[in-house]
């Protein structure tokens, strides 16, 4: 059907708009915000792809999904083929289609960007992945690899570990994933909320890996239950993808008052432990006025969660301006639509409490932007004497995380960076032969797709290592 369209007709198609739940309504429930494209919408959007030879979008994708090819299959109404192409390069497409910053990766490089907006690759990725999930019987058979007889241990079941496991399983290696928590998924499970990434999606992606023969063992904390040495002894190779799970503290007065949370705790209570549901026992403090400190995805997730838990006012407090916010554009837009307030160019000086030990508010410092720092963003500087008070009964600290030392502290001679991240070469190899690492533990807090990119790269390196050592 695509063949019937002239270039002019293709150019005339406008970029699809993702159907969304009404902002008023959704700011009070935990159902997914984005509703997904219809078949017509998806086919029409896929037709917008010009199938250009240079394929700049593929270069923008950390796992190099063959984007034009799967878009063409959608346009031709061949979803089994589209799914086949997508799943070959991306182990977690239903996740990526929801949380990847496509606007900075594939889409930003799309030749159609300048005039009518890039092809909505992310939305289409989600469309195909969801179709694949609902139609497992229609998927093209993937070749079962010859078992290699080699075993690999993976530490952590976040996107890095899961991608790694999927890739290696496809290559015929026997993979065991060790996860510290009682559920899989890492940040996908405990950090990113239901309304952005429904947990049945994570379940389905993990089940698909298990069907590939990957073994997953929860409740194993490497560094405590087993040591890295145990793993190197029992397995032919090890991949460490244990994330950056250690919250940075604000180090200001009042941080330990009741009602002050790290974003990790706040989101873990709500997501992993299900505190948003009435039928589960884990409690959460439902603030009336919630202030979230930070400007990243985590801050947006926390503040939008607070709103859904019933906050009358849910406020972002960020020390730079909107332009420097690391959060995805879509999250900021959605937050605004949901009535989230933004107090920009301001930082907390002190958290104030009442006489019962509960948080009552914050004393804040107004900031201005100075010279760029090493991250290239303009450095915030205090405006002397310009402070103000902000009332709050819940405060969430979302300023970032650092590498958790639980594993590395017991890993003897494993080489670390000065910040405590695991040091690796360009193939994700650490200084210990046969031990590889990737994702946030190497990069610091980054993104799902970069963690997956590492998983994929490390899988190739491990495959190479295993074949050489046999």
């Amino acid at each position, binding site marked *: 059907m695509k063949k019937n369209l002239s270039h002019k007709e293709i150019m005339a198609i406008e970029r699809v708009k993702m159907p969304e739940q009404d902002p008023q309504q959704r700011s009070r429930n935990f159902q997914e915000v984005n509703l997904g494209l219809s078949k017509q919408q998806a086919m029409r959007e896929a037709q917008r792809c010009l199938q250009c030879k240079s394929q700049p979008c593929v270069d923008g994708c950390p796992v190099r999904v063959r984007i034009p090819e799967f878009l063409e299959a959608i346009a031709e109404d061949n979803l089994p083929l589209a799914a086949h192409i997508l799943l070959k390069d991306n182990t977690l497409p239903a996740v990526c289609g929801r949380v990847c910053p496509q606007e900075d990766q594939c889409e930003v490089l799309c030749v159609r960007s300048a005039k009518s907006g890039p092809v909505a690759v992310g939305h289409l990725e989600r469309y195909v992945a969801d179709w694949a999930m609902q139609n497992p019987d229609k998927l093209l058979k993937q070749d079962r690899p010859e078992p290699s007889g080699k075993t690999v241990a993976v530490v952590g079941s976040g996107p890095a570990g899961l991608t790694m496991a999927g890739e290696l399983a496809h290559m015929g290696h026997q993979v065991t994933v060790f996860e510290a928590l*009682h559920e899989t998924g890492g940040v996908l499970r405990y950090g990113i909320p239901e309304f952005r990434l429904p947990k049945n999606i994570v379940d389905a992606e993990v089940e698909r890996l298990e069907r590939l023969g990957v073994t997953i063992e929860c*409740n*194993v904390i490497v560094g*405590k239950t087993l040591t890295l040495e145990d793993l190197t002894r029992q397995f032919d190779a090890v991949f460490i993808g244990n994330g950056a799970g250690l919250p940075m503290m604000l180090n200001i007065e009042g941080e330990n008052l009741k009602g002050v949370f790290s974003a990790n705790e706040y989101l*873990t209570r709500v997501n992993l432990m299900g505190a948003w549901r009435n039928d589960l026992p884990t409690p959460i403090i439902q603030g009336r006025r919630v202030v979230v400190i930070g400007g990243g995805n985590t801050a947006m997730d926390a503040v939008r969660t607070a709103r859904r838990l019933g906050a009358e006012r849910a406020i972002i407090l960020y020390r730079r301006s909107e332009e420097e916010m690391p959060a995805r554009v879509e999250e900021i837009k959605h937050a605004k639509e949901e009535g989230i307030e933004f107090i920009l160019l301001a930082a907390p000086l002190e958290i104030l409490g009442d006489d019962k030990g509960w948080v009552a508010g914050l004393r804040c410092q107004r900031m201005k932007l100075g010279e760029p720092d090493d991250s290239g963003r303009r450095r915030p500087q205090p405006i002397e004497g310009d402070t103000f008070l902000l009332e709050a009964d819940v405060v969430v600290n979302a300023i970032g995380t650092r590498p958790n030392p639980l594993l590395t502290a017991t890993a003897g001679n494993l080489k670390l960076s000065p910040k405590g991240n695991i040091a690796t070469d360009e193939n994700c190899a650490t200084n210990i032969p046969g031990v590889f690492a990737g994702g946030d533990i190497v990069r610091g807090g980054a993104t799902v797709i970069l963690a997956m990119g590492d998983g994929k790269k490390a899988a190739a390196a491990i495959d190479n290592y295993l074949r050489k050592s046999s």
Partner: protein
Amino acid sequence: MFEVLENDTLAPNVQRLVVRAPRIAKARKPGQFVIVHPEKGGERIPLTIADADPEEGTITLFVQAVGASTLKITGTPPGSPLLDIAGPLGKETDIENWGRVVCVGGGVGTAVLYPQAKALADAGNEVTTIIGGRSAPFIILANELGRFSREVLITTEDGSLGRQGFVTNALQELIDDPQRCPQAIFAVGPVPMMRAICELSRPYGIKTIVSLNPIMIDGTGMCGGCRVKIAGETKFACVDGPEFDGHQVDFDLLMDRLTMYREQEARLVEDLPESLKSKITKVKR
């Protein structure tokens, strides 16, 4: 899944559970704990590992039902599983040869104390044990602790066993006696008890180690919910503790943070059937 092999009653509403957990049994050191997630959708509950048998692949837990989730654990019969157990977590007890040590246990804290006391005795310390409780049925492990203690002193609030009074009375007596005055004290029990012990020992400059029990979720340093203040600095009890120098602990903060979800917890207990409510012990925090 972690099968419960034994579950018997030690004191009113305190159960002793032996659970199959081979990896934890092998790795565990005195002073460490596990996090138990008894069933899908349940809470994650930190519990000290009282004992472990690496050969049998089992760990022993002493559990007091203090709310709906702990009640679920104590109510798991032999042959049935607990869904998730993660550990061993936290730092091990810093076992040194101090010379003379006093171990003080209050209520179910006595069970937490047991492995420490044993390890201290094994390391050549002369151990005197003080056990306190509301009344006679709440005094646990006196015989077991007696096996390696030079003396076991028992205090009950109502005088139904040992002498009437508090563990602090017994400790004061030991401190006042130059032959029995300890070089170090290990105290585990309700927060007010641990605090009272620390207040008592502080003027004498006797090193006092306490085991803290803040609210936890992951137990791996990921959430920071378990934070406590030690010598003015914020620490995560699950990874930096659970044992700390009692003279440096901000007990006010600990007690206050333990009350954070009091209303929600009360509501959960409220929803339990009448027959189960009596199985829950109200703890002083």
